[in-house]
């Protein structure tokens, strides 16, 4: 009886570990839902072009991560992308003239939002929008412009 009980406990541990692993693969490894939003406040920014920015990309000031992107929408009236980001609650001193940029980490790396604080004394609150943004640099467009500007004279 005792032996059989031990075996059943081992089987129970095995099955629950298996289910936990499956759960981790579907929740933590892939993006079946995005739980763990964390507490903090939400800011929005409008961009003409977000390049390859993705949900959960980091938001940084001076290279330090202070939050992450939680939602990307398309505004079909203004033909703009609206990026919503969740900022840690402690980081409450973001001036309202801060510029939101989309940068790329490394040449081919991940895209993130870099904030450049301005000098204003009023700070952004929950659900505020950045007044000034600059879009992602699209590499193909840069190359295209370089080719056109270097076009030989005449033809």
């Amino acid at each position, binding site marked *: 009886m005792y032996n059989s009980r031990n075996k059943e406990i081992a089987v129970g541990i095995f099955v629950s570990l298996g289910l936990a692993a499956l759960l981790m693969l579907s929740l933590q490894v892939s993006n079946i839902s995005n739980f763990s939003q964390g507490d903090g406040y939400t800011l929005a920014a409008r961009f003409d072009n977000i390049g390859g920015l993705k949900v959960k990309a980091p938001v940084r000031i001076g290279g330090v991560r202070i939050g*992450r992107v939680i939602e990307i929408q398309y505004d079909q009236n203004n033909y703009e992308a609206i990026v919503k980001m969740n900022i840690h609650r402690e980081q409450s001193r973001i001036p309202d003239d801060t510029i939101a940029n989309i940068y790329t980490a490394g040449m081919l790396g991940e895209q993130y939002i870099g904030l450049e604080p301005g000098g204003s004394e009023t700070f952004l609150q929950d659900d505020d929008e950045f007044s000034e943004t600059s879009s992602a640099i699209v590499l193909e467009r840069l190359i295209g412009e370089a080719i056109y500007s270097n076009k030989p004279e005449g033809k």
Partner: protein
Amino acid sequence: MNILDRFQRLGQNSENLLAQVGARGLFLLRILAGIPALLGHMKLFVQQLYAVGAQTLTIIAVSGMAVGMVLGLQMYNILVDISAENTLGHVVALSLVRELGPVLTGLLFAGRAGSALTAEIGLMKATDQLAGMEMMAVDPVKRIIVPRFVAGLFSMPMLAAIFSAIGILGSYFVGVDLLGVDEGAFWSRMQAQVDPYGDVLNGVIKSLVFGLLVTWIAVYEGYHATATTEGVSQATTRTVVHSAFAILGMDFILTGLMFGD
């Protein structure tokens, strides 16, 4: 040797091959037909789940951890040269979930659980236990084979998922804790690139297929082993070798079907 002899040998070989395939197919059908009867004997199933699944857990966990850590280390060394070390989580997760998890778990499962199944059933045959059961009007396929087969089928996806999950944790430990990859980028790149259905679900399907192949081969070899010490040892060897070939061949076909386009 004249030409007709050669044709005869070819014909003989084809006939043998077809007979082998047919015998295995019929045996599988017999097992499948016996599965409903298992519902009345859950105790047998849990016992086999212990022998086949829970006891294989240690080797799977250790191997998964080792593979994940090594993969993390090697990938980091390559990726850091092109300053793409943030994609470490993505690379490791995809290779584990799609390929390494199911295939390595299948191979380990064949070595740890498949061989034990064949040896156990083969010895039962060699010591006339199976014949004794038939005497008592107990169907050895239903009583011995079916619980082991279903337990194997049930265990493999679990073991493969544990392998992949522990492997990803191992690469997280090496990449983020030791080598300094950004934690947020590690998970966010992974979550952005790993598809819950295209990758995770297909990995589970793969491991289910491998579990079917390994346990099918193992119980067939055990049940049809020559009833001698040598016969059992040969059957055990065949189980491991044939399972490995079956897994590797099937993996190529499944990968082509699942991730081909």
